[in-house]
């Protein structure tokens, strides 16, 4: 890193922007329903007035902290602040209800910091090699990759296989609403022009995760205080977090590296990295049965993987101008506005930009520690706010946040419909996470399937023609076979050993 880059990075303006964006990212990430992508999107108007190098630092600092801060409402209220926190929200929430919210959040903070630093180190080390592979991906490989992501959604959920799949198919159905990609035929819009663009993702996630939670909270009554109001002391939490980090250092190392690699694949961002690393962690854990019941191991994996993926996502963005996720897509737009076109030439034409990016990543991951500790200390205040005060606030923020995405009432209807659906699904033991992944990945799967089919003129075997496509496709099919076996095993086992509580409600 040259002296001029260091001087630019440590200039008062740059440091002030990184500090401000760290706090901003923490706030937006910690607000249920406001995502990291939204934080960056809302930042875009401000970056017009900034030097491109500082604008990049601002984006990096905002995403880094927003992805971590998404764990805060997830842990305290079971509302993931960003989709990237959804993979392990169940474990984190149950730990918090057992009075361990601070140590859980500290584990996720330090795991996020380590993941982020590993992510940027790998980005700097192997960016060109990795991107060379990723850029060879055509619609065939992307199709398999998205299918793999969908399968992971079912693999990671805790409910029965049939209910997880139902949730996934509901999500896939929601993804098909709107103009279709192949011939432009409107599907399930019933003549409503505002539905032609499809269901917007952010109102959908606000409905499924935030509103359903508010509805359930309304039914549990206002008199019972949340059981997780008790929190550990700061020093005890820090001590406990240190023990957990030492115990699961291998998990953090594995998920940081894996998260970076997944993040580097186009279309797969922090949320998919967290899902896949959580699934892998469960697979290799000594206690896979404890996942989803309030077990910290999955939190270390998911927490480090999603922050590592942020760095990874910049790899194809920087080297080939292909966004790794929605955030880098926005960032590429800002670079283009400033007259810089990302691509292989950026390493030779403006190396200072690449170096500033690395530096900004390292700095914001370190700045995240004090900001994160601050928010963890203040989080107890969030828990002590009575629900009758908190829930109207969350409701208004959710509704206005959804409205801000589309600037139209259609966002309110999306929140309403999916909130009611999510509430009904949860009341009957259907997991929500596969639905949200179905919504995100459904579009990607369909677009790439249709593109591939048009290229191959309907020849399905073309999906195995290219070496990477064949490898990814075989992996996906193996996973599907595994899921099918599990489903059959589940139903056979039920027939032999009917559960005594089978006719009772799924809730106490």
């Amino acid at each position, binding site marked *: 890193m040259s002296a001029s880059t260091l001087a630019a990075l440590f200039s008062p303006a740059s440091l002030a922007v990184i500090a401000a964006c760290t706090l901003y990212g923490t706030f937006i990430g910690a607000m249920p329903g406001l995502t990291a992508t939204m934080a960056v999107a809302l930042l875009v108007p401000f970056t017009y007035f900034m030097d491109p190098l500082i604008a990049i630092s601002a984006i990096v600092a905002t995403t880094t902290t927003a992805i971590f801060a998404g764990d805060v409402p997830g842990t305290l209220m079971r509302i993931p602040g960003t989709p990237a926190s959804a993979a392990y929200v169940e474990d984190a929430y149950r730990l918090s209800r057992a009075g361990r919210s601070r140590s859980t959040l500290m584990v996720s903070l330090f795991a996020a910091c380590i993941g982020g630093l590993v992510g940027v180190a790998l980005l700097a080390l192997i960016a060109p090699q990795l991107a060379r592979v990723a850029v060879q991906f055509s619609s065939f490989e992307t199709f398999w990759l998205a299918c793999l992501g969908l399968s992971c959604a079912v693999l990671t959920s805790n409910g029965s296989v049939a209910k997880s799949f139902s949730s996934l*198919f509901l999500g896939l159905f929601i993804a098909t609403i709107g103009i279709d990609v192949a011939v432009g*035929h409107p599907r399930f819009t019933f003549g409503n022009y505002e539905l032609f663009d499809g269901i917007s993702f952010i109102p959908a996630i606000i409905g499924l995760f935030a509103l359903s939670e508010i*509805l359930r909270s309304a039914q549990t009554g206002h008199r019972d205080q949340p059981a997780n109001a008790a929190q550990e002391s700061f020093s005890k939490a820090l001590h406990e977090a240190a023990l957990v980090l030492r115990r699961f250092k291998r998990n953090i190392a594995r998920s940081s590296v894996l998260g970076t690699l997944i993040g580097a694949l186009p279309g797969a961002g922090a949320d998919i990295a967290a899902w896949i690393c959580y699934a892998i962690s469960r697979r290799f854990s000594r206690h896979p049965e404890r996942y989803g019941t309030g077990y910290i191991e999955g939190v270390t994996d998911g927490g480090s993987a999603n922050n590592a993926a942020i760095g990874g996502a910049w790899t194809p963005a920087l080297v080939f101008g292909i966004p790794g996720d929605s955030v880098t897509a926005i960032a590429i737009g800002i670079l283009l506005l400033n007259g810089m076109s990302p691509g292989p030439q950026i390493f030779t034409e403006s190396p200072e930009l690449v170096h500033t990016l690395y530096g900004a990543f390292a700095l914001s991951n370190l700045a995240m520690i004090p900001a994160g500790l601050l928010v963890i200390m203040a989080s107890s205040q969030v828990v002590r706010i009575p629900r009758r005060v908190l829930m109207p606030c969350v409701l*208004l923020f959710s509704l206005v946040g959804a409205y801000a995405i589309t600037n139209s009432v259609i966002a309110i209807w999306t*929140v309403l419909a999916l909130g009611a659906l999510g509430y009904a699904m949860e009341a009957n033991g259907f997991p929500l996470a596969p639905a949200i992944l179905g919504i995100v990945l459904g579009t990607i799967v369909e677009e790439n399937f249709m593109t591939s*089919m048009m290229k191959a003129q309907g020849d399905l075997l073309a999906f195995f023609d290219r070496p990477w496509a064949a490898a990814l496709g075989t992996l996906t099919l193996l996973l599907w076979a595994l899921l099918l076996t599990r489903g059959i095993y589940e139903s056979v086992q039920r027939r032999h050993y009917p559960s005594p509580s089978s006719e009772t409600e799924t809730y106490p």
Partner: protein
Amino acid sequence: MYCNDRLSGSLLVLFGGLVLWRASTFPSLAGLEYGPGLFPSIAAIGLIVCGALIGFGSRGRRKAPSTLTMPPRQKGWRMAARPLALLIVILGYGLLLDPLGFHIASFMAVSATALIFGMRAGGSVLLALPLMIGVHLLFYSLLRVPLPWGLLAPMAW
């Protein structure tokens, strides 16, 4: 909002059937046997199969562990009515947002929600007013989200 598995399974089968019927009316791609209807049909068939398994498969089933640590749902019509009342509040918010404007609609929605969650009338007004102003400052003034003014349009700035 409890339904048993037989009911939810039947609803899924019914819904899948409707989607499948609707998707069969979509045009197909030139030269291929499928088109816009393919993915909705896959989702619909998936829903029908899963719905049949849930509703009419073997009756023994695993307890869903997803929300076991949640505080127990309270029984009785009053408790069941509260989520319904909230849904009506949001419906009203969507309907009134444009005609009344963001400020009046938000004030009403927040007060109503606070009342539903058991706050007294005075407290709900004390909560709704600063919250509405705060959200206005954050989203309208700072983030430039064009929130509708509705009835208050003459005093818009």
